[in-house]
């Protein structure tokens, strides 16, 4: 099989590139994402968003073979899957990792072996600055972004003393760094929790004693659900703010009423007014019978970026494919979208509020926090 494909390719080359750019070669995409455990909601939405875009593309996607594997939110499992996908499945493009510690374990090795990596979510600062790579594209954001917007919002909301909390892993550190970059008031306390922690009694006690006028927390997936449920039952009344991850559509139904009215910052919301987004939200609901989360939106955008690049070049022609990705000529559900010098997005960030829409908790944009926002690490990236 492999040999015959290579022979075929060589023949095509010898024939003087008789075949036009969108060659018939099959493109293998390996998706490594979290499909079980407390982080399953994130990976399932990533996968579903990605697959929805492929389905909508119809014939254009027929040469894409998508392999999906569950990383169980464990770095060692993710590395094993990546090795298998690269060495025995011969994938051209990797994507799908939700968690930054897993991304740090997989991405540098994958791009080092000449593979492309398109991030649907995790975008640690270590891969945005000095560690950037021309084959690594973050379609979602740079980790700090949503938290930077939350810091800016905390100023606008008049909070003077904020208690900040995030899990102790790369994205958690990026989160608090991003928040502090724009927030000008005092920090009541800076707390790091364990990744996957499910009991927040200790942290809630610290919040109660801190005298803070707001709590900023970054706890994606099951962590956020556990925290909000316990916070609601603790009798602490301090208002909470957070990035979209803490109040995303995958979290809201389980948190329930405790989330109503909470402000959070995002680069996507289901009410961003553009045709691509409208079509996406409708199709996602029709196909999966639930509202899409930010992770679904990122997965959808990533697949569409990939499709747009494949129309112009194949991953086998790395240079052309890289240039085609960099153009980002797809209709993002976020509206404006382009890549900065370090292959991370330049985009608008919004403040959203959790509302009750006909009995379903969801988010509504109430303000724009930042316009055409890039990231703080782009200047350090030399590629």
């Amino acid at each position: 099989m492999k040999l015959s494909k290579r022979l075929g390719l060589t023949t095509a080359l010898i024939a003087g590139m008789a075949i036009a750019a969108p060659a018939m070669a099959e493109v293998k995409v390996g998706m490594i994402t979290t499909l079980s455990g407390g982080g399953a909601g994130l990976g399932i939405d990533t996968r579903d968003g990605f697959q929805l875009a492929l389905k909508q593309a119809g014939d254009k996607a027929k040469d894409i073979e998508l392999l999906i594997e569950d990383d169980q939110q464990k770095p060692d499992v993710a590395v094993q899957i990546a090795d298998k996908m690269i060495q025995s499945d011969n994938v051209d493009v990797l994507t799908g990792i939700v968690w930054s510690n897993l991304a740090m374990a997989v991405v540098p090795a994958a791009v080092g072996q000449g593979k492309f990596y398109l991030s649907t979510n995790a975008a640690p600062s270590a891969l945005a600055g000095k560690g950037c790579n021309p084959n690594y594209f973050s379609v979602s954001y740079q980790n700090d972004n949503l938290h930077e917007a939350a810091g800016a919002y905390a100023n606008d909301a008049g909070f003077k003393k904020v208690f900040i909390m995030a899990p102790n892993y790369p994205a958690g550190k990026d989160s608090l760094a991003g928040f502090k970059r724009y927030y000008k008031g005092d920090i009541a306390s800076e707390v790091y929790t364990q990744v996957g922690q499910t009991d927040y009694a200790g942290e809630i006690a610290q919040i109660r004693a801190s005298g803070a006028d707001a709590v900023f927390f970054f706890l994606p997936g099951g962590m956020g659900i556990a925290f909000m449920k316990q916070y609601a039952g603790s009798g602490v009344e301090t208002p909470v703010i957070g990035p979209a991850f803490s109040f995303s559509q995958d979290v809201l139904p389980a948190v329930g009423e405790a989330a109503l009215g909470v402000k959070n910052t995002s680069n996507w919301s289901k009410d961003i007014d553009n045709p691509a987004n409208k079509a996406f939200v409708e199709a996602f609901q029709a196909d999966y019978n639930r509202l899409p989360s930010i992770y679904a939106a990122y997965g959808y955008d990533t697949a569409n970026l990939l499709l747009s690049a494949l129309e112009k070049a194949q991953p086998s022609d790395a240079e052309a494919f890289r240039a085609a990705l960099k153009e980002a000529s797809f209709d993002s559900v976020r509206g404006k979208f382009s890549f900065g010098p370090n292959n991370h997005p330049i985009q608008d960030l919004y403040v959203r509020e959790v509302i009750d829409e006909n009995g379903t908790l969801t988010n509504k944009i109430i303000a724009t926090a930042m316009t055409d926002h890039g990231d703080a690490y782009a200047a350090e990236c030399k590629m």
Partner: protein
Amino acid sequence: MTLLIEQALNGLQYGMMLFVMAAGLTLIFGVMGLINLAHGSLYMVGAFACAAVAAATGSYWLGLVASLIAAAFVGALVERLVIRRLYTRDHLDQVLATFALILIFSEGTRWLFGSFPLYLSLPPALAGAVSLPGGVTYPVFRLVIIAVGALIALGLWLLIGRTRLGIRIRAGEADREMISALGVDIGALYTAVFALGAALAGMAGALVGTLQSVQVGMGEPVLILAFVTVVIGGIGSIKGAFIGALLVGITDTLGKALLPVLLQPVLGAGAGPVGAALASVLIYLLMAVVLIWRPQGLYGARA
């Protein structure tokens, strides 16, 4: 000060839950000499039974009862079908077989309930927080957990110390061959002890699942801590499990709360992540220190 009291209560609550988990583990280890890695699966079975029954009937209380019954039933079944064959085998075989049980239970539960976590809501009587003397506000449900843990400790102490079954359990720990020679049905005794341990694990799973979330694999992190507790307390000792669990619970909670603060003058801004990382190894340090001082554990009869 109120912070310290609240953190101490958190540690106590955590310790009580660990005790309920570790009590079953230490009984099974002590009486049957069996290393049961699948104890965490019984914890998960209890949590899922509670979530399923509570969702079907709308009653959290029925869910709790179901967690006890389901875990005890599954425990007894597993003992009869699998564990029974392992008593005479060495520990490696037991670990392998019970590890296989973990995989079977996890995939079975995933097959039945899916990968998404389930969430329980509290009945209004147990929701919210109360003000305690001393100006501390504390969630009602966590107080209930402390009370349940204390009641179970008392109940087990009475059972082991004051009843015929307790005498048999203690005799079984001391000399297995002798009590079967004396006409005690050792098979039935083992099944009963295993089911009792399983029911306790299931109950712990349901209570903790209510507070956090009910999901596949929820038992494994707790299992490790329960083993740490058993080793600290001394294998086979309920009293050891109780003291060990409270030690682990309070060390872990207070370590997480205090270490970042204590390291602040030394490390400055880096104190947060470093303190958090150090706090998570604190209980293993505690275990190492206890084992150096008393290799058989705090109340263990044998090493």
